[in-house]
């Protein structure tokens, strides 16, 4: 991706995200508080973040591969279940990924 495209993406997406914030302070509340709109917005993050977890862990372009990322994710899930702090979760996941890379 060229530097110009990247800057257009960075600035355009930033403007879009800002306008979404501004809209909340500007549009009539009843537009946003429609039951179906509210329900969709409440659940979009779960669907999207889970999709990102899955794609980041096992997708390489259009292929599904098993490598250190999946091992790191499994360790991260265990750490989160044990209520480890964020930084500990990331360090453990990173160490697992590095270990698999060295051993493989």
């Amino acid at each position, binding site marked *: *991706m060229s*530097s110009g495209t*990247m800057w257009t*993406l*960075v*600035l*355009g*997406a*930033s*403007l*879009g*995200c*800002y306008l*979404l*914030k*501004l*809209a*909340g*302070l*500007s*549009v009539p509340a009843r537009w946003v*508080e429609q039951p179906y709109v509210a329900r*969709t*917005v*409440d*659940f*979009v*993050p*779960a*669907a*999207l*973040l*889970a*999709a*990102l*977890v*899955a*794609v*980041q862990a*096992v997708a390489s*372009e*259009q*292929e*599904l591969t098993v490598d*250190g*990322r999946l091992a*790191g*994710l499994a360790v991260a899930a265990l750490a*989160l279940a044990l209520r480890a702090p*964020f930084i500990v*979760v*990331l360090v*453990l*996941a*990173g160490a*697992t*990924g*590095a270990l698999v*890379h*060295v051993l493989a």
Partner: protein
Amino acid sequence: MPDAARTAVLRDAIGLGVAVGLYGVAFGAAAAAAGLDAWQALVMSLLMFTGASQFALVGVLGAGGSALAAAGSALLLGTRNTVYGVRLLPLLRPRGLGRVGTAHWVIDETTAMAVAAPDRRLARVAFLATGASVYLLWNATTVVGALGSAALGDTAQAALDAVVPAAFLALLWPRLRTPFPEAAVQRRVALGGAVVALALTPFVPAGVQVIAAVVAVALAGRPRPRAGVAA
């Protein structure tokens, strides 16, 4: 206003800023891994300033996705800030130019702090203190992550590759656990989103499967009367 309550609000705001700062390092590193330079990563933190959208944008790019798919996923995650604004309006009552400035700091953390404050004056203090603390640390640590990861070798790069999905999982995790409203339904939607994304991966351009995963929201079912709201 009682001084103790105000002090507690300020202390929590600083604590939250430090916690979010750790995510900033992870974001800066993920941005660098996805091909953004340090300036682009910093400008995103300065101007976009909404963590999940920023992570999504660099995540989709890192997976080989197009600029359009990256922007689309960032905007979809940004819609929840619109709902936050609606909730904050009666608490903050910004006017004129104040609304333009206030909007920039409407994010998960400032909303949670303002809504939890015992009265309107403290809600305003909570919003501003949390906004300032998170903004400062998020941007500073973005630079640290972006510059730090440039010095990484092969093995460290493998470590970073494993950190990115773990960071997304850490963002997702609190939504799946009680006391988050309807945590069981959130888990169902999350599982559906992951399955849809993986099933589509071989067949669609990279990044598109992430956006397509929003169809999993249908698994949440119909709106409930007086449904719980996410903060």
